[in-house]
């Protein structure tokens, strides 16, 4: 029996980048209120998976459902923190402006950003202890501070589901701890969080569930079941490279 209120349901998802397959037939069902870490080597398709759920990349096969609806409809219920590299840090916006962007999704095209939105933005900045920096240009902050601001923006979105692409990249140890505790708090409020992560050792402490990904879904489940030598070996070890080689080969042939 299928439960239609699942926040994220992925069925037989295949995605290609410029004809090179990146994800092969991935099935995934994420329950409400889970804190999921996505682990896998470089080029395993972690970001691609996130972007496909966000409806930024069109899949070649299979489907994504968000609360039982198509991604296009469901997208408004998802908050998103993109990878650091995709952001223009020299852009003339202040910290407060950035957090306020989290409220844009709640308004129609020409809807006014009101007092309530500003109050919310302030509150979220306070929550990540960045309120004193509200008027600073975003480019003036350190990497860790910037990441806190992005977390505040995500909080301001008040979404039910959050997808975060490497929120711990370029972050100092103190900020990393702070972010983790905020993520835990969000989970306790019943939010669903999917977080791409790059560090194997800390993943065990940070998340409840793990998705091991390397073009294929290697494993998905509670830490205790998934964080095993065998499965990690399978994810990071060499056996799946044949898959990757074949993918490149396929791409080359289709060009010719």
């Amino acid at each position, binding site marked *: 029996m299928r439960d239609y209120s699942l926040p994220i349901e992925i069925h037989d998802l295949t995605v290609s980048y410029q004809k090179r397959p990146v994800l092969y037939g991935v099935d995934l069902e994420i329950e409400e209120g889970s804190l999921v870490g996505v682990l896998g080597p470089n080029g395993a398709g972690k970001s691609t998976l996130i*972007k496909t759920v*966000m409806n*930024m990349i069109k899949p070649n096969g299979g489907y994504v459902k968000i609360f039982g609806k198509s991604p296009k409809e469901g*997208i*408004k219920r*998802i908050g*998103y*923190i*993109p*990878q650091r590299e*995709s*952001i*223009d840090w*020299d*852009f*003339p*916006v*202040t910290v407060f*402006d*950035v957090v306020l*962007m989290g409220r*844009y*999704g709640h308004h129609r*095209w*020409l809807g006014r*950003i009101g007092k309530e939105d500003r109050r919310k933005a302030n509150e979220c900045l306070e929550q990540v202890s960045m309120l004193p920096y509200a008027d600073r*240009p*975003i480019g003036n902050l350190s990497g860790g501070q910037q990441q806190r601001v992005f977390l505040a*923006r995500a909080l301001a*979105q008040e979404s039910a589901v959050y997808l975060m692409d490497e929120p711990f990249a370029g972050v100092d140890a103190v900020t990393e701890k702070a972010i983790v505790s905020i993520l835990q708090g969000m989970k306790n409020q019943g939010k669903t969080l999917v977080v791409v992560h790059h560090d194997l050792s800390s993943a065990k402490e940070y998340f409840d569930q793990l998705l091991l990904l390397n073009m294929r879904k290697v494993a998905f489940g509670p830490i205790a079941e998934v964080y095993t030598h065998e499965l990690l070996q399978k994810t990071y070890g060499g056996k799946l490279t044949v898959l990757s080689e074949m993918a490149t080969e396929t791409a080359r042939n289709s060009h010719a």
Partner: protein
Amino acid sequence: MITKIKILGILIGIFASHQLLEAKQIGSETQLDWFVQAERFLRMDDPSIQRVIVGCLIMGVSCGLIGSYVVTRRLSLFGDTLSHAILPGIAVGFIWSGTKDNYSIFVGAMIAGFLGVSCLSVLKKFTKINGDSSLGIVLSAFYAFGICLLTRIQKVGYSDQAGLDSFMFGQISSFSTQDLCGQFFTLLLIGLFIFFNYRQLLVSGFDFQFSRSIGIPSELLQYGLWILISFCVISSLQMVGVILVSAMLVIPAATASLISKRMNTYLTLASILGAIAGFVGAFLSFLGKNLPTGPLIVLVAGSFFALVLFLQPQKGILFQWLRLRSENSRIAIENTLKAAFQILESRDFQETEISSQEMMRKRGLSSAEVQRETLNLINAGLATKSTLFTEDTQLLPQTNLTLTPKGWEYSCKIVRNHRLWELYLTNEAEYEPDHVHEDAEKIEHVIGEKTVRKLEKLLKNPRTDPHGKLIPSMTDIQQGHFSLKS
């Protein structure tokens, strides 16, 4: 930047002399000299002048507004390419209609611009050529083609090809009411576009992925911007010409980027700067007859950029230079005070006066330099001077320096900073005692009271430095346990 100002100065000089010659030649008609001409421009009762002024202002505002998006989205080279790519379109439009008909030229330019952008995306999709290289390729190829066509038109000799040159360099004399309408229309479009999409443009410019995640059609907005950039470029051609129009997109906005930290001030500043540049440039070109308007407008905009770069608070070159200067003079004063302390220390603090000869020896400076340093101390209220006349008239009168209480306290502090740091380096950072002096020479001037407190605590209020010399402590200094006999 300074050279730009210089160039402007020279140019103004050239106009002036040029005008003198000109005035002689056309003296029979109306005796127009510089000031009369300027007055005529500023009184604005001539309809053609009114038109030009309004046109320049509108162009400046449009370019400033859309340029803000060009600069923040790193589309500068794209704007440049677009402006060059439309040249063949202008020529074809001209051939099509046989006259300088704005409508067909506009259509031709838009089509050429579209083709240029299409070429770019084809290159991007099917080759591995870098973005900037493909921009360069499209820019120069289209431009070369455009020049060929224009030359052809001039050779064939169409009836009304006189205004065609203005597309290359910009010429306000051929600026018509129709051109003005085109500019007004462009400004209206740009204004409406920004007004209705301000928030969406903000978020998609800053964080493209996120903007898409909240359902903003960011690609569409980008296309909208491209179209408006083309509109702005085409309508500005009469003023600044094909070659320099991208400068109007970039320079006012880049100037704004130096000072504004939010998009709304960015837009305001860029449009004001653009408008002023347009106005002043047109004014200058009106004074110096037959001088192309475009380069002048761009030069004025460039000068503004240079001025802002030079004068802006905190980061400006002038500000930094002043700060460096005051810093350096403070360091010089502190070094003199330290030398004074050491001289007094060498006499076990039994005397208070320091002769300039001693100072020269200690600092390794010439007598003139020591005199200047002494004067600086006196001006800062840190020392007093007494002059002794010796009986021997052959010798110069001897100048002696005495530290005031304020100067004494200051000198103690500097010496304390120096020796405390040396001790810290040897004790905590495990430096050899003979390695620490150089570093302490720099640190003593920048270490703050807060760090000093921390060091004192860390080192348990030490009394002697690694070389066995006294470290004067703050309580000693303030409570007078350790003072000069006077």
